[in-house]
């Protein structure tokens, strides 16, 4: 039997025939496979892209040390760490905060474009890209957590204090919107044309 004439309950995964309206076990409404909600994915993706600029151009962390005030952008912070010889940490932040978001944007744009213009890319490759964006994207939050934790911890008045910059929130919002964009893409859609 082909899965095309079957519906799986999203909640308890019980399989029903295509004429069922409600799950016979948990009574949840059974959702018919709807056409990809691309509009929603695009809105989330473009919002994330708009947030990308303040997230990277504004300072993410402001340090007050013995009367000197320094503010750093994400890229500035990475360079500072590199100069201090913390190559490993600098690499983690560089990958998580700079490389991953760009890679995620490229991947999500490729997926949304290929669905919008119905490009027949290989479903298996699209699924692999999708799974990677879903899994790796969240790790970008690490720099926001570092700044938030340091600001909560290092408050010693004039000796040394750390404050979050405006980019921290912009960056957090950007990551959340890319997560929402990835979440609104249903990889099953990639496979619908696969059988034909």
């Amino acid at each position, binding site marked *: 039997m082909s899965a095309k004439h079957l519906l799986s309950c999203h909640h308890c995964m019980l399989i029903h025939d295509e004429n069922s309206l409600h799950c016979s076990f948990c009574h949840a409404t059974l959702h018919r496979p709807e056409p990809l909600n691309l509009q929603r994915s695009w809105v989330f993706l473009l919002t994330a892209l708009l947030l990308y600029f303040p997230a990277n151009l504004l300072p993410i962390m402001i340090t007050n040390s013995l009367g000197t005030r320094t503010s750093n952008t994400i890229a500035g912070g990475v360079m500072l760490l590199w100069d201090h010889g913390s190559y490993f940490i600098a690499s983690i932040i560089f990958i998580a905060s700079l490389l991953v978001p760009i890679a995620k944007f490229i991947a999500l744009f490729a997926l949304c474009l290929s669905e919008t213009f119905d490009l027949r890319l290989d479903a298996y490759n699209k699924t692999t890209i999708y799974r990677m964006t879903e899994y790796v994207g969240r790790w970008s939050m690490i720099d926001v*957590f570092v700044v938030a934790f340091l600001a909560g911890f290092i408050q010693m008045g004039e000796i040394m204090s750390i404050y979050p910059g405006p980019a921290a929130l912009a960056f957090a919002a950007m990551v959340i919107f890319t997560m929402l964009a990835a979440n609104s893409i249903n990889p099953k859609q990639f496979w619908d044309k696969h059988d034909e």
Partner: protein
Amino acid sequence: MHIDSLNNSVICHQCGLLVDVPLLQDGSSANCPRCAKVLTKRHRNATDHVLYFSISALLCLLYSVGFGFLEMSVQGQVRQITLMESVTTLFSLQEMALGTLMTVIIVGLPAIYVSLLIYLVGSIKLKRVSRHSIDILTVVGYVRFWNMCEIFFLGILVSMVKIAGLAHIEIGESFWAYAFFNFFLFAAIMHFDKVQLARAIRELTWERERPRQDSTNEASRVG
């Protein structure tokens, strides 16, 4: 109506293929033949493992909130914080949005997640499931998507390395508790399988309802 003969089948939620998944042996898993996604995995004593790891995680989380987390000293000045103080400091800096976000990430979602796991798996173990257990299973899935406490923990380690050259850092009891919390939560998640749990909830519920249906049938026949 659901199709009884497909009770042991799964529609791959990644590619939509209908796959027959028989009752698995302990330690084995079933993959989708088309997109290779792991559909379900059966762990040895999965329910017990999830339950005990979740309870340990919850105890560690509760412990980590109340005691000294980290202590730093610079030029003779000392500052010690608890995990919650790292958040309340943000609120006192008027960083309301960031403070709220961190409260949700550090303790909010993890506490909800672990409590729901304990309730869900506990009710399966005590055979006290109902159709509403499925709702909990669904919520657990949502919370898992947004839960990022392991990323936060890595963030703490990065923060410590960042300031290691500037100040002397002392690690408190809470820090270890939060580390163990992350470990136990990870172990619980590794033993968690949605398909197996959904199947267990369905079967336990049907099992409980079956004798009642039989007796009502008999009563109507007699009547």
